């Protein structure tokens, strides 16, 4: 089995699906000839032609809006927004149209598109290139939000997203793009959307993480009897996986690189408080970025939760 990094795994998923289904069309800024600024779509225009891998003008809202029209017409568009910070220009299209087209048209039209966008911090990029505002998108009914944490699950989740009948926002943690290689099967496999994965088993505390934080959490928990839940899909949340782990451990720490206020950790903590209160032995803690805009490179390490802060939270809940 081939050892691939996440960029290669995503590229392979796109290529396989394009070969299998001629409705799949990629569009975005620099996705064609240049193969994307992270090279995720490298070689796809050569293989499938400029009609299926469209270099668009620089226009995030029209990229998203056009993808909605294409999806309603019966295609399977995959718009790439070059960085998550640029999705804000397309936010109205995503919120007001992609996510509610099925509902507004009472099922006459659906919007099966997959928005791919690089996400998250730690790559020494300019302002708005390291955003982690996934919670905003999880607040949109009708939109699924998926975050892979490694090459294997990136391919399996993307294949599932490409076959999902509804719109999916597929967030690709840039810091992980080339960080690790894993064995990635060549053929077709899908990981079900809405299902979390137990990344490590444990019994004293549940640590919930996703995307690039997972790697930090796994490094930080050395020596702790911690169970790590890798969410993979942020909306809908796998409540069953979260509850069954916390019912076992009685403690929960949620780690995310987004800011604390109204971050996804708040939703998870509230759900655990509603549904697992009697199993809890300690307050639920969140390890997050501070409530400030994502800084440039000089302070990014102070901004992103690091192993020390994760361990401090674990020590705190384990005191109870």
């Amino acid at each position, binding site marked *: 089995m081939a050892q691939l990094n996440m960029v290669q795994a995503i590229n392979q998923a796109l290529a396989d699906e394009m070969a299998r289904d001629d409705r799949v*069309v990629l569009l975005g800024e620099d996705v064609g000839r240049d193969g994307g600024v992270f090279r995720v779509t490298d070689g796809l225009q050569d293989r499938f032609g400029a*009609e*299926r891998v*469209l270099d*668009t*003008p620089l*226009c995030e*809202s*029209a990229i*998203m*809006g*056009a*993808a*909605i*029209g*294409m*999806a*309603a*017409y*019966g*295609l399977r*568009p995959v718009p790439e927004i070059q960085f998550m910070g640029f999705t804000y*220009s397309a936010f*109205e*299209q995503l919120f*007001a*149209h992609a996510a*509610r*087209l*099925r*509902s*507004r*048209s*009472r*099922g*006459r*039209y*659906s919007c099966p598109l997959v928005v791919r966008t690089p996400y998250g911090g730690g790559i020494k990029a300019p302002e708005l290139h390291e955003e982690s505002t996934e919670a905003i998108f999880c607040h949109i*009914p*009708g939109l699924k939000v998926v975050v892979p944490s490694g090459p294997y699950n990136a391919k399996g989740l993307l294949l599932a997203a490409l076959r*999902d*009948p*509804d719109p999916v926002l597929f967030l690709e943690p840039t810091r992980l793009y080339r960080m690790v290689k894993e064995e990635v099967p060549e053929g077709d496999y899908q990981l079900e959307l*809405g299902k979390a994965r137990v990344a490590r088993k444990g019994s004293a505390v549940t640590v919930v993480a996703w995307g690039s934080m997972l790697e930090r959490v796994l490094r930080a928990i050395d020596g702790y009897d911690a169970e790590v839940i890798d969410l993979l899909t942020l*909306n*809908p*949340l796998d*409540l*069953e996986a979260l509850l069954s782990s916390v019912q076992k451990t009685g403690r929960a720490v949620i780690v995310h690189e987004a800011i604390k206020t109204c971050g996804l950790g708040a939703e998870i903590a509230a759900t655990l408080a509603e549904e697992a209160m009697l199993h809890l032995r300690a307050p639920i803690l969140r390890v997050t970025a501070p409530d400030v805009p994502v800084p440039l490179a000089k302070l990014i390490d102070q901004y992103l939760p690091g192993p020390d802060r994760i361990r401090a939270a674990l020590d705190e809940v384990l005191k109870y």
Partner: protein
Amino acid sequence: MPEEVLATFQVKRVSVLNENGSADLDLMPELSADQIWRMYQLMVLSRCFDERAVSLQREGRLGTYPPIRGQEAAQVGSAFALKADDWVFPSFREMGVHLTLGYPIPQLLQYWAGDERAQKTPPQLNIFPFCVAVGSQIPHAVGAALAARYRRDSAAVAVYFGDGATSKGDFHEAMNMAGVYQLPIVFICQNNQWAISVPLKGQTASASLAQKALAYGFEGVQVDGNDVLAVYRATKQALEKATSGGGPTFLECLTYRMADHTTADDAGRYRSDEEVALWNGRDPILRLERFLAASGAWTPEQGRGVKEEATSLIDRGVGEMEAVPPPDPAELFDATLAALTPRQAGQRKGR
């Protein structure tokens, strides 16, 4: 080095019928007497629908409603040129387009009564749901045009919007993309001169909206939007150009919103009675009546007959709309996703 002129442009204005209903025979579109009569019927039907909708709103039987009075020629004339398999992306003020395309009257009323089940377009029509967010439907139309071309379909795409939408980014992004890819699409702007309380000169410093297309590399034409024959002619030509590989066209239908922006608005706060009276004299229905009367094809009695027929169609539509049982609360969930999330499924059961 001397300064050079890189480009000069001209913008065409098209009209067929003057205000007295006299036609320029050189510009007459190819339409049979029956077809012109049908357009007349549809304009009257649109007017009757509109008047009834406004009064139903006043009685509390419809919610907030955006009147189309004055825009019947722009709507009926353009929609009359569309083929059954063309795709249509309306804004929220195109009831005349819907009626021309055969959208069921009870269903149109049902939507404005607050029942979104009515946005499920009949299967024979490729018409998108009303778009309330101004201008945001324009990129969807560009996407459909991209898809039609990818599929090698013969369909063209028409997208409707008002003058206010031309100030939005989505209009410019979509026009630009359509120009870059030379897509089979017709942008149909009903310039009704007012975006709620802001007049055209508060939306743009351009001499026309039509000329905006030139910046995106395709033709923009200003059409007398109260002249149903001119609107039809321009739309037909633009659709033929679109489907024969000639690329997009932008049509600015110069018209006027005779009524308030919506039933929640009072246009008396921002525009003069004189202006409204001026445009009353340019009524698109009167203009067509004058044209037809000149050739003996219209009499006041025939006019009354058309109106009575339209009124009875609307009466029947209102009855059918009000006989529809109210939606079940569970319908809140039913079309949100192909399969509900576990949380939605629980909420649907009241948990």
